[in-house]
């Protein structure tokens, strides 16, 4: 399976999630979008949206905390799968090769970015990242379109945000160090169970690292690289020796998969 096929699959997954969310809204089975999806009466809030709004704890019912716990558990188990397969900005990573990445640098930048964003949000009493969040902007544009109140300026604003992230900040910086959504998922994922693992066929040729959009040296099996990995599968597709594959493996278990 080549990288171009992965790009097509990723386009499909991004579109399928949006289509599902529109269909759920139109049928009334679930309401809301990425920022908060209410399934039946169970709200699943974006963990980052929640963290920026400390007053929610006092202002609402415990249901929101249960939904949040489920979301966090899913992230902890699966890591940055959202970044690699659902996020509309994450699609841009498919066009990148990046050789100079460093798992440790990514985690450090993510920590600083997430912490500074949350501190400024709490000081201002305003969820500042939600203003820029590309996922939230897509969500809002769809919600406006569904009610027939979408205006051209809101679309232009969305395009501006996407342009700044992809052209000015550059995607590999955004997804590999700035985006607080990616940061939260990376920092929560030391326990994730789906990991790309190198088998004994690996010759340490580093073709995987050169093809990784974030420059991760996933074949070395370092925790920091696994945390930043978006499971985009590019390394798996590009490995000439078919040495890499996704495996269910827990860092807690003593038997590491290495066949």
């Amino acid at each position: 399976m080549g990288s171009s096929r992965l790009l097509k699959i990723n386009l499909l997954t991004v579109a399928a999630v949006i289509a599902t969310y529109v269909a759920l809204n139109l049928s009334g089975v679930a309401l809301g979008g990425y920022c908060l999806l209410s399934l039946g009466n169970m709200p699943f809030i974006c963990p980052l949206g929640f963290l920026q709004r400390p007053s929610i704890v006092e202002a609402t019912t415990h249901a929101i905390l249960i939904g949040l716990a489920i979301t966090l558990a899913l992230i902890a188990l699966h890591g940055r799968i959202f970044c690699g397969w659902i996020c509309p900005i994450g699609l841009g990573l498919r066009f990148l090769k990046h050789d100079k990445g460093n798992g440790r640098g990514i985690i450090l930048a993510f920590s600083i970015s997430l912490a500074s964003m949350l501190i400024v949000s709490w000081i201002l009493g305003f969820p500042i990242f939600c203003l820029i969040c590309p996922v939230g902007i897509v969500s809002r544009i769809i919600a406006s379109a569904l009610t027939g109140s979408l205006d051209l300026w809101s679309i232009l604003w969305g395009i501006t945000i996407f342009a700044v992230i992809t052209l000015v900040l550059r995607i590999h910086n955004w997804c590999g160090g700035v985006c607080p959504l990616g940061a939260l998922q990376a920092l929560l994922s030391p326990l994730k169970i789906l990991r790309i693992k190198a088998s004994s066929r690996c010759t340490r040729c580093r073709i995987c690292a050169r093809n990784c959009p974030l420059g991760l040296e996933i074949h070395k099996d370092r925790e920091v690289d696994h945390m930043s990995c978006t499971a985009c599968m590019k390394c798996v597709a590009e490995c000439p020796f078919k040495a890499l594959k996704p495996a269910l493996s827990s860092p807690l278990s003593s038997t590491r998969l290495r066949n």
Partner: protein
Amino acid sequence: MVLGLLFIPLAGSFLSMLPSRRVVRPPGAVDEKLFLELCTRCGICVDACSSEGRGTLEPCGILDGVSMMGTPKVNPLRAPCEARYGICEGRLPCVKSCPTGALRWIEPEEIKLGSVSWSPGRCIAVLGGECLVCAEVCPVPGAITPRNGIPVFHSNRCVGCGRCVYACPADPKALILMPEGERRHHWGRAGFSR
């Protein structure tokens, strides 16, 4: 990299301080500052309004302000709000659907979304026509009283439902719904009060 790390705090705090329009919020909204924090812009209240109410709510666009985008507003040009003297009285689908507490339960007699502002220069009755549609559709006793064929507005009685704005036949409309006099939930040490 440094630019990247400073981008969100700088751009976010700058954008959050840009001026925004004052809009009419759904019934039971908390104070504006807290509302902007609590509202996740999920659009669920807007959905609930269009499926169970009359569909007066719509998400704010970017022209209402960057920090407002996606938050709900009452647009009486779409439909009047039925929270008082209407199909939503006592059940408030928007409030009940809000998952984050940005909209909170409010008794029908306490609902006041704002009040209407009247532009005599556009009013058919003032311009010599025969029109008292606003007074006819107004459900609030004594909020619009005709005097010599011209409507007189009593904003202290107005609940801000927007029925008169919706019905006004003038083009452009002689009436605008404004948040002036709105009643919001206040956040205090003892929880919420009105």
